[in-house]
């Protein structure tokens, strides 16, 4: 019995170490590959030139600007809606059918694959609403896509605001609305920021939903009604069109750097959130 135990322990322990090593190796392979191949491709002109093959300009500036546009517009639409929805769910809604319907649909939105969002964006925003292939079509599509992330994360952070704050405010005669805007939201700000950053991560990485909505024009979009290619789409096109592997490595590297920055930021915010959570419940 004892020996059997021992060998069981040993085997399981070995598996734990082996599989963890596999995970780590996977990670090192992917990031190492991109960094080693991509970093040498980075130059000032690569980052700041426009993209114009006939003029031998292969910069990614337009894609970076378009990506920023897309992020701004998407957040402009989705953040208020998401925050308000979260406020409703946490502060107003009574548990029941309505709330469970809202939750179910939010979960559903989170589960829909991005290619289906792309299809929907193509039928609805591009064709039906005649917004054509534009930053706006892309942003509207992505707004729906990131909505669950914002609602969920904001909800979590609203819940971490200590009850006493809210009760204190109400007891002092402040209205419910005032309490929400003056007490609850400011105290949930780091969670909301985390939601925003998570969303930015998704927008930066999105391809399938944008291919048929925001289009692939490699120029800085002149307005939100113009088409504009984002970084991820640029990488996809560079690779599948076989245009330039070197540029693809460079673009992948820049994307990776952006993702790392986003990650660190959200880890920092999550840390702050956790601290608040512990501070709140320590009482």
């Amino acid at each position, binding site marked *: 019995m004892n020996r059997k135990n021992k060998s069981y322990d040993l085997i399981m322990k070995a598996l734990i170490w082996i599989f963890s090593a596999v*995970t780590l190796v996977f990670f090192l392979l992917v990031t190492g590959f991109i960094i080693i191949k991509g970093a040498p491709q980075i130059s000032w002109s690569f980052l700041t030139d426009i993209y114009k093959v006939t003029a031998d300009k292969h910069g990614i500036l337009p894609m970076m600007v378009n990506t920023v546009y897309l992020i701004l517009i998407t957040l402009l639409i989705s953040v208020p809606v998401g925050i308000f929805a979260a406020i409703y769910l946490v502060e107003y809604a009574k548990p029941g059918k309505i709330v469970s319907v809202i939750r179910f649909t939010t979960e559903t939105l989170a589960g829909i694959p991005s290619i289906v969002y792309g299809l929907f964006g193509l039928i609805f925003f591009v064709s039906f609403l005649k917004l054509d292939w534009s930053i706006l079509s892309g942003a509207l599509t992505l707004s729906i896509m990131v909505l669950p992330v914002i609602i969920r994360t904001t909800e979590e952070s609203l819940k971490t605001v200590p009850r006493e704050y809210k009760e204190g405010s109400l007891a002092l005669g402040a209205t419910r609305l005032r309490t929400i805007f003056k007490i609850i939201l400011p105290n949930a700000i780091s969670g909301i920021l985390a939601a925003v950053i998570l969303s930015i991560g998704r927008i930066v990485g999105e391809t399938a939903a944008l291919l048929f909505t925001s289009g692939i024009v490699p120029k800085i979009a002149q307005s939100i009604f113009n088409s504009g290619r984002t970084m991820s789409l640029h990488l996809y096109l560079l690779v599948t069109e076989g245009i330039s592997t070197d540029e693809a490595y460079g673009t992948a590297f820049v994307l990776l750097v952006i993702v790392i920055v986003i990650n660190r930021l959200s880890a920092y915010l999550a840390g702050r959130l956790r601290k608040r959570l512990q501070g709140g419940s320590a009482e």
Partner: protein
Amino acid sequence: MSNASELKKFNKKTRIMTFLVENLFMVCAFVSVLAVAIITFFIFYSGLPGMIEIGIFDFIFGTDWSPVYADGGFGILPMILGSIYATAGAIIIGVPVGLFTAVMLSRIAPKWLSRIMRPAIELLAGIPSVVYGFFGLMVIVPFVQKFFSLPMGQSLFSAILILSLMILPTVITISITSINSVPREYTEASLALGATKIETIFKVEIPAAKSGILSGVILGIGRAIGETMAVIMVAGNSPYMPTGLFSSFRTLTGNIAIEMGYASGLHRSALFATGVILFVFIMILNLVLMAITRKGGAVRE
């Protein structure tokens, strides 16, 4: 006097304001309901007529996909199977690796190791799928071709490798959360009864965290089945029935992404219909997920 009437006016104003804002909250909360309704409607509206014209049975169980030819077929069984095989493969590789890594991080790992691995896993979760696809195309595809001396490396196997990698973060993070939420008494009782630490993990904690881990697996399935860009870069995308681990194949998502730009008429509706099938798959997964979380207490990322 006038003070009182002003106060009244002020009160009325705030009341209207409050009414408006609070209703705005509610409206916003219903945006997701509305979005799901519109998405469902438009996907089905664009896909169903084509599916009916083709014949639902012929569409789902047909094995010939050649929509542009005179007597061409509109069968997407190869893609349905392709999606299922690729996802199953990713689960078979990704779940054990992910689960054991989660055990490592939640129970075994020394501090320095978690300090390295946790951010690494968070980063894996954040890497865009095109970057995975690019990595797959440049590293995995040539590797598979050479290692197994195949005519080509674009294959089910390559796609499975990439997908396993992509679902890892989901499986790991959710497993960690659910293992950590196992009540401490369980662990202590097991240890007190003389079980070793490892036994306690695998015979007490993991069974107790079962529903959480399962929801992680389901989310992983969702991610794998919905993945598009990374898969089309390594799959080969041939519209035939997948014949083995090393055959070129096409997924439902790939079918849409590759041909959408070129399709018209019935071909186009057939692609929307492919979206309908995908949508139904996801809805089913979502319902399963709801059932699991309702039963076993919610565990979220």
